């Protein structure tokens, strides 16, 4: 085996220029996948992080039918008291859940006594909301001495697009006018405590008020919760946690639905497109490896016919000849990938020295690309396997040569 490797590697370095050319091509493909993958994955991760940590939460629980009519922000599809208690108990006991936040969501009119506009509102318990969406406070354009009290009764956090539209300033008094689920209209005066940056998606343009104010405005005896946002201990366990919670809570009689952020945000489809693009780049890499290894190995076999004849004549078994050429293709793949991975990771490292800042859907994104180790392992494995696969046909051809014919070939 050791000797086969030795011969294979030496043969590779026999035609230096050709080997260099082919391995550069493959290395280039690997670099492309790593750099593009690194950028795309970190873009995705960061976007998902912003959305789940500042607005949506990782999972949401509603009364059945709520998400279907979410655009209307219905107030009649609430989680009734006993259901709410059960849900909260399950969330407390679940090993996956780090925090949760009950919300009342509704649409209202906002007026500064001169102009009126529409506003979407989330009424929350600030401490619970801050634990569930710890990034939310970063969107608030104000220094907060205690993030657990980012909103207090009598205050409103206004989305910053309204600031421009209505010419509002911090400290201004505004009136919220809302219709409750029984159809009666009521108003409430609040002061603007700060503005909040928008993020992608409808829920990203919500204003925030304290849940006690919502109770008053909507004339509720008890807070009638319509949504519970859930923050998981480990985001990588999203699917497991999602399925577990669904299994536990969703029964025909329970009238509850559980959704993951993917089902609630338009970014999920962008994320899928990003995944698709990464896949396309990988397919390109595979094609590059396939074609170039097939090409170089076919050339190798044709150039070395009389050598193959010699080793066959002196007693090398066909299987060993097959192995010899497979090894050569494999070594070629390994060499190229190693170079590609080193350069690719080097480039990512350089990009981290100067992160790329840009705005995506009104969100400030700062890209410091990195690639998960398992992606790098996956890419390396793919290239190695494809290298062996591409060498199969030429190697098989070599092993099938009759020594007499091969020896006669000059």
């Amino acid at each position: 085996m050791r000797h086969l490797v030795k011969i294979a590697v030496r043969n590779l370095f026999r035609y230096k220029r050709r080997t260099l050319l082919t391995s550069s091509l493959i290395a280039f493909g690997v670099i492309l996948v790593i750099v593009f993958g690194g950028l795309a994955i970190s873009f995705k991760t960061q976007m998902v992080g912003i959305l789940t940590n500042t607005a949506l939460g990782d999972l949401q629980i509603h009364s059945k039918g709520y998400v279907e009519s979410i655009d209307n922000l219905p107030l009649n599809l609430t989680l009734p008291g006993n259901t709410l208690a059960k849900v909260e108990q399950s969330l407390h006991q679940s090993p996956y859940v780090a925090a949760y936040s009950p919300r009342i969501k509704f649409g209202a009119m906002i007026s500064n006594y001169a102009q009126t506009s529409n506003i979407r509102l989330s009424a929350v318990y600030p401490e619970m909301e801050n634990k569930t969406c710890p990034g939310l406070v970063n969107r608030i354009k104000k220094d907060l001495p205690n993030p657990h009290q980012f909103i207090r009764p009598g205050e409103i956090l206004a989305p910053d697009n309204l600031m421009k539209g209505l010419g509002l300033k911090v400290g201004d008094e505004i009136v919220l006018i809302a219709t409750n689920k029984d159809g009666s209209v009521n108003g409430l005066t609040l002061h603007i405590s700060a503005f909040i940056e928008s993020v992608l998606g409808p829920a990203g343009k919500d204003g925030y008020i304290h849940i006690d104010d919502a109770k008053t405005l909507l004339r509720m005896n008890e807070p009638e919760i319509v949504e519970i946002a859930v923050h998981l201990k480990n985001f990588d366990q999203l699917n497991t946690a999602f399925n577990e919670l669904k299994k536990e809570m969703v029964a025909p009689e329970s009238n509850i639905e559980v959704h993951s952020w993917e089902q609630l945000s338009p970014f999920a489809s962008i994320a899928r497109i990003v995944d698709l693009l990464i896949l396309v780049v990988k397919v390109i890499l595979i094609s590059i490896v396939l074609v170039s290894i097939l090409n170089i190995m076919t050339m190798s076999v044709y150039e070395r016919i009389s050598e193959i004849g010699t080793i066959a004549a002196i007693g090398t078994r066909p299987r060993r000849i097959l192995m010899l050429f497979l090894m050569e293709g494999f070594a070629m793949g390994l060499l190229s990938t190693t170079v590609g991975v080193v350069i690719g990771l080097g480039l990512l490292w350089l990009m981290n020295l100067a992160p790329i800042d840009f705005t995506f859907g009104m969100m400030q994104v700062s890209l410091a690309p990195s690639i998960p180790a398992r992606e790098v392992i996956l890419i390396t494995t793919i290239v190695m396997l494809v290298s062996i696969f591409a060498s199969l046909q030429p190697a098989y051809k070599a092993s099938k040569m009759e020594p007499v014919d091969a020896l006669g070939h000059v």
Partner: protein
Amino acid sequence: MTLIRLEHVTKVYHTGEVPVTALRGITLEIGKQAFVSFIGPSGSGKTTLLNLMGVLDKPTEGNLLINGVNISSLGRAEAATFRANTLGFVFQNFNLIPVLTVYENVEYPLLLVKHVPAEERRRRILTLLEKVGMVDQKDKYPNRISGGQKQRVAVARALVTNPQVVLADEPTANLDHATAFKVIGIMHEMQKEFGTTFIFSTHDAKIVGEAEILYTLEDGVLVNQETKNRN
């Protein structure tokens, strides 16, 4: 002590449009420790005959037995194993493996036969390189040595597995006269020292003097056999 036996061996090539009969009804026996030469003009069938005795090809008709094994019965892989264990080869074009050093070229056939411990391997290789006078060149690659030197390495390579027969098809065709003599001389010495049977072919009447048994081929037919007394 018959080592190789040919019984009415005929070889017909069907490669071209018309079949070519390269050997017609050859019957002969070669014993152990023989030093045999086949001579004949180009196209007389020497290569064909050596290929058959080298288990590289199979007769169209007749039987060829080596050590009692009918070579027609061997499959591809079996034939390769048989060659590795029983035979050694020296080629007209030297055919050293370019990416291996002189030492590694001689080592190569040993890696194909089982159970030769590293220390024993090393000893055998160095002994043979010593005997063919190439031990001081052992770390050179084939493209750094002359044709005569290559052929001496090839002789060492052919002998390293202690084969019973070494087959050499026109081993001196690419060498000048003096070198050719030296190479045949070395082969003869090895034959005496190790008792290996050497079979070589040539179309050069001048170098066959060394042979102890001399067969003459013409148009695929054995036309003459001469035996000299061993000295």
